[in-house]
């Protein structure tokens, strides 16, 4: 079997991780489809906001 390789960028990895975890949390904690959709959207938004926010907060220390 040839080794598989995924070379995801920082943003791609964060987006994929945030999406998958948000979907799992939505299905875990809510029962009705509409509630799940709302929870997934809200969780994804917060993941991205915090991820990008922390990224920008660390930016001055990288220079």
């Amino acid at each position, binding site marked *: 079997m040839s*080794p*598989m*390789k*995924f*070379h*995801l960028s920082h943003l791609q990895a964060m987006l994929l*991780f945030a999406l*998958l*975890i948000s979907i*799992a949390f939505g299905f875990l904690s809510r029962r009705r489809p509409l509630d799940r959709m709302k929870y997934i959207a809200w969780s994804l938004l917060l993941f991205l906001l915090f991820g990008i926010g922390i990224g920008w907060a660390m930016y001055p220390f990288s220079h």
Partner: protein
Amino acid sequence: MTDETQIAADPPPDTMREARAIAFGVAGWLVPGLGHALQKMWGRAITFFAVVGVLVFVGAGMRGNLFNSDGGDAFAALGYVADLGTGSFYWLAKYIEVGGPDVSHAYGDYGTRFLAAAGVLNLLAALHAYEAARGRKA
């Protein structure tokens, strides 16, 4: 007297329910989503199987560090516990990651997090299946 003997011989319903719940929890740990599938919670079953599967597949494809039992320090032991949380998918990750881990690049480090997150998420899903079987969650 005979009635008392019969009552004592039959396990109480709560014990049966508890044993069933533990079985569902263990099944959910071994195969992600199976604990919910056995309770006919199809949406959750498919979701957990797919999410844990994709996290393991991508994490191993990014050459994340898949810990084993002879890690040496506490963090490696914790990582091993987290990775074992994926149940049977731990061996799937080992099968996919034929080149071994490579954390010299950022994506290898992300892969390690993907694998650990998959394990912890599956443990959470297995615990949910156990609680649902006990009637505490729906």
